[in-house]
């Protein structure tokens, strides 16, 4: 463990040349999130000026209407989008580090679909279930799927990267079909409520959702950053990690559970937003090279900005029709996914 610590320190806190750029980029991304927040609060069917928004936020609303629109509708929704983006990005970054697979993404390998199935089943079968239980259900579903994929893909070769992804695609197809069957079987009003949630939309998010997401972020993120050192060792490959004194099996299980928890809590609140966990860590990586801890922070900021922007675009582009943010992230994410395929050597096991 101590060697692992020293190892990560080589490109961590003691070297100053790289973090400068990374920290600058982090500042820029956080600034971008703030700009997105302000613009999101301005835009909509009741447009507000930037000064009005700032005034409302600082407690001097120009009108009763502005107070309601900003505080009741737009602010919690935007916060939920930013927090969900950060959670999904962190989940993807952790998953990519642990599986050493640049294509790992919670929505691609069925983890999001597992969470989705659990929640849809609950909505259709037990409609009276309190909403507070949703994250737990989603977590259970996602964890079951993650364990299943691990069990199937890892047993033979210690986890060939491509087999992991392909197994995930197969399981995702299976779970999607199950979810659709639930939707056909369920009563129409319940099915419609589940359907809106499944498209990955933050439009219904209020303060309770935003609070829940922010709470998860505050609870799980310190755990993730505490795990950044073993993660740095894992990134070097299994042999190196073992050589550095890491209990690889246990660490891998813990990190995957953590990653699943991050994705599941986001999915439970705003539905499966596709490709965020895939794209955000790569954006972070392209913008600035850094150690694992800083890379996580950069990924979170990039993910928040991505989902914030996707929500804004979906809200404004075809107004008054709202395009769910999940569709916008999919349309933006697929070209980046293709670009990643073009750069990744496909290694048959």
């Amino acid at each position, binding site marked *: 463990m101590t060697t692992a610590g020293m190892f990560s320190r080589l490109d961590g806190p003691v070297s100053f040349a790289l973090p400068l750029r990374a920290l600058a980029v982090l500042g820029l991304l956080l600034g971008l999130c703030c700009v997105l927040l302000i613009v999101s609060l301005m835009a909509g069917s009741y447009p507000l000026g930037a000064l009005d928004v700032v005034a409302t936020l600082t407690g001097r609303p120009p009108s009763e209407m502005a107070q309601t629109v900003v505080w009741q509708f737009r602010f919690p929704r935007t916060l939920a989008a930013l927090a969900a983006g950060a959670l999904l990005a962190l989940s993807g970054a952790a998953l990519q580090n642990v599986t050493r697979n640049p*294509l790992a993404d919670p929505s*691609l390998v069925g983890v999001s679909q597992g969470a989705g199935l659990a929640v849809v089943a609950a909505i259709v079968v037990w409609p009276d279930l309190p909403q507070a239980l949703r994250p737990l259900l989603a977590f259970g579903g996602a964890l079951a799927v993650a364990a299943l994929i691990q069990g*199937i*893909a890892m047993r*033979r070769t210690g986890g060939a990267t*491509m*087999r992991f*992804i*392909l*197994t995930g*695609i*197969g*399981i995702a*197809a*299976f779970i*999607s*079909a*199950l979810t*659709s*069957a639930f939707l*056909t*079987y369920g009563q129409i009003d319940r099915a419609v409520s589940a359907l809106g949630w499944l*498209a990955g939309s933050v439009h219904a998010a209020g303060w309770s959702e935003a609070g829940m997401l922010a709470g998860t972020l505050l609870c799980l993120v310190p755990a993730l950053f505490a795990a950044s050192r073993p993660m740095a060792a894992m990134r070097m490959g299994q042999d190196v990690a073992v050589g550095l004194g890491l209990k690889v099996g246990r660490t891998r299980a813990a990190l995957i559970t953590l990653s699943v928890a991050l994705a599941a809590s986001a999915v439970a609140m705003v539905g499966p937003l*596709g*490709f965020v966990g895939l794209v955000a860590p790569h954006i972070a990586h392209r913008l600035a090279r850094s150690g694992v801890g800083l890379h996580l922070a950069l990924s979170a900021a990039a993910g928040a900005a991505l989902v914030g922007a996707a929500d804004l675009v979906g809200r404004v582009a*075809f107004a008054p*029709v*709202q*395009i*769910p943010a999940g*569709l916008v992230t*999919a*349309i933006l*994410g*697929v*070209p980046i*996914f*293709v670009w990643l*395929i*073009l*750069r*990744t*050597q*496909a*290694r*048959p*096991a």
Partner: protein
Amino acid sequence: MIVPLERPGLSSLAPLLGIAAVSLAFAWHISVGARSIPLHVVVEALLSYDPALFDHVVVVDLRLPRALLAALVGAALAVAGALMQGVTRNPLAEPGILGLLVGASFAVVVVVGVFDLTSPTLIPLVAAVGAVLAAGAVWGIAAAAPGGAAPLTLILAGAAVMAFLAALVTVASLLDEQTFEQLRVWMTGSLAGAQNEVLKWALPWFGAGLIVALAVARQVTALAMGEETAIGLGTDVVRLKALSLFAVVALTAAAVALAGPMGFVGLVVPHAVRLLVGQDYRRIVPWSALAGAGYLLVIDVVARLLLAPVEISTGLVTALIGAPIFVWLVRTRL
């Protein structure tokens, strides 16, 4: 590698038995429904139709079209899958996984939804164009990736194209809810509610695709042994690939025009057939057609019985069966 061209266990009776089994599935498919009709009445209705009898009218006017549809779609997708697996030498190749089904249905949705064109003559053509474009995109992405169009890369490219088109379809359906409400069931792959008009116009595509598939089957066997082997055996590989692509696209277009995207049929059936008849595509192609027809007939009965009186989309059932087999193939063949 020695490919066993003849399997001694398979006597000349096998084709007859196969046809008999599919006919039985066909009759069973017709007999099951809200009003169950005994098998002997079904046979009577088909052989000596009497319009005065109510059961005969139900069989011929209501149930026969759907049974024909299931048989045609199953045969088309199974043959398309078998050809794709042979030509790309990829055990996971299938119209659904490589994006052809999504491409075809995307094209149909756009043309029906955006341009408001509902003439049944053109729908198979539109589906074919969509399938070709999607296949081109998937193949182009995979070929440009390092390592070329390896099985794994092809499937990832297929997943990417699928996710993109699916998102676009959902956006379009949100913008114009009324038109897309009608297409929603069709988009999950359903055998309910296809019109006889579409069946008439999809038949030529199906026939052309099947004839070309049977004609190239011999050379596909050579190609499945490797491109060099095929060239050494005197096969014109480029021409063969073009013909196979035509057959695959025509069959996929016919299937999509009739029933929407029906996933994993082209994956499951050829693999099962290969277990029984060996590696010779002269046998695999006709047996896939037969087995595909029987498979989808049985699946469609299951889809109607499972949660009766609610009917599950047949495409969901094929996915529920096919996806685990896909995972199993990933585990054992790659």
